[in-house]
């Protein structure tokens, strides 16, 4: 079982390779989109690298639940509804969505995710030693 430090290190490597950023830029609090410049297609690349690095499978919509974000039941006028937020929190217990929830525009969703969230996501997939 990898330690949290080992998980962070591998996540950091994956982001450096996928996004062409410097290692020092990949801090736990850095947002993937705003701070590290990730674009939508980069998430596919990041998923490839995480699957390979940790020998895990990341099904479509698990890291980014596009099915929720494009569901009229959960989105109105470009904003995620309360029910949508509840669904996102249920599906993504590893993500801190408080900041996003304050102004839940769908277009800003990917910018809510941080490096720390990504590490917690991996922890849920592999389990992590303290």
């Amino acid at each position, binding site marked *: 079982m990898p330690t949290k430090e080992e998980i962070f290190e591998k996540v950091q490597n994956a982001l450096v*390779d*996928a996004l*062409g950023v410097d290692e020092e830029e990949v801090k736990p609090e850095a947002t993937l989109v705003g701070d590290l410049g990730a674009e939508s*297609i*980069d998430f*596919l*690349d990041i*998923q*490839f690298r995480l*699957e*390979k690095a940790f020998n895990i499978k990341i099904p*479509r919509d698990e890291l980014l639940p*596009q099915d929720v974000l*494009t569901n009229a039941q959960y989105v109105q006028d470009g904003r995620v509804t309360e029910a949508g937020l509840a669904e996102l929190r249920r599906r993504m217990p590893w993500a801190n969505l408080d900041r996003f929830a304050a102004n839940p525009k769908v277009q800003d969703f990917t910018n809510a995710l941080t490096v720390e969230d990504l590490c917690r996501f991996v922890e849920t997939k592999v389990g992590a030693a303290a």
Partner: protein
Amino acid sequence: MRWYWIDRFIEFESGRLARAIKNISLAEEYLHDHFPGYAVMPNSLVMEGMAQTGGLLVCEYGRFREKVVLAKAPRVVFHLPALPGDTLVYTARIEYLREDGAMVSVTSHRGGELQAEGELVFAHLNGEHQDKVLFEPSAYLRMMRMLRAYEVGHGPDGTPLRVPEELLRAAARK
């Protein structure tokens, strides 16, 4: 593929590896201006050739059902110029395959020397692009035959590469 930046496949193992060659000739018009007095194949076209090699490898593995597009090139490094008279050998290896795309490592060799190398990410178009037609089945069939993929290709068990039945049927309907 609307333009061809590989001449033919010389090796094609379904789901694993494809190798193609590109003969560079001064008869190719783009070389006359790139650059006047010093003809050199643009790196972007070398990358296109490597992407076509890898892209068709990914397409074939999915039996041409997926709409495969080059999504990004996380890393491409060029070591040597590609000049008229050179034969480039492009090799594409599938590193990773998922239902929504693939990662392929690519190299270009010039007379045994590493000319370029990199990683390419291909995405399978879906969602709002689901109904978009990138290529007709007949176009895939023509491309693969013209590039001699079915002459040199084989499956992981060594059996000759076959045209998928559904591709033949779809091409016949057009």
